[in-house]
């Protein structure tokens, strides 16, 4: 695709042929899936931590109200 065509389509960058895509590269897709899995573990850990902190704050508030 030419730069002019890209500009007409609102596509700001021409496509470099050297970048791999998960659609055509199963090994890359597997790596990205693995990365997503690790991110998900960390996300769940953080959400549990936030939940615990909120629980502690709620308990502190109850004590103060008494």
């Amino acid at each position, binding site marked *: 695709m030419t730069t002019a065509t890209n500009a007409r389509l609102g596509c700001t960058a021409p496509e470099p042929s050297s970048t791999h895509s998960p659609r055509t590269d199963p*090994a890359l897709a597997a790596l990205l899936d693995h990365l997503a899995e*690790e991110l998900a573990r960390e996300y769940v850990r953080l959400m549990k931590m*936030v939940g615990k902190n909120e629980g502690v704050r709620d308990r502190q508030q109850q004590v103060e109200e008494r």
Partner: protein
Amino acid sequence: MSGKGEYTLSQAARLLGEPQHRLIYLCEKGVVQPDVQDAEGRGSSRRFSARNLLEFAVALRLRDLEIAASFVGAVIHVLRAFELSVRKRIADFRLPESLRDPQATDLRVIIGDGARLYFSLGTGGSTKKVYGGIDLREPASSKKGLRALERDLARPKALAPSATSGGFGGPEGSRQARVELSVTRIAQELRLDD
């Protein structure tokens, strides 16, 4: 909205404030795959989910920054896999809704030196952890085996010296250039209703 959580192309374009052809381009490149209905020949039109709207919003911001569509496709691939993985542990987790909570964890995409893909996660009170580092120009360039590479990608990155000594890079240690985008912030600012 055409149905509960469903959007036509024109509705999606209007909510995102973008011309339709930019969304069509992302669909045709396979970056965004319509969740509700894909275009199949004449007379059939694409229909999108709220998740698709988030994917478009992230993809369009990255395209504005001149990131190649294949690279953007890798980012969207991780977001989809991330949602599925979290949902195995938190059944009601949904994108974009779960990131719209004011308490939501800040999920960011970082592109280092124009080629390396990272994600970071952190809350207001915690230090951000950075994951990834896949070189999308040469994903298989590592001499390590796949398992070793996976372990390395999953290991949170230690703060690079450049991040602490006033150098250019962020915690992932980019040397020349970096792009950072908050998926959480985009989700929170996403318009889902007219």
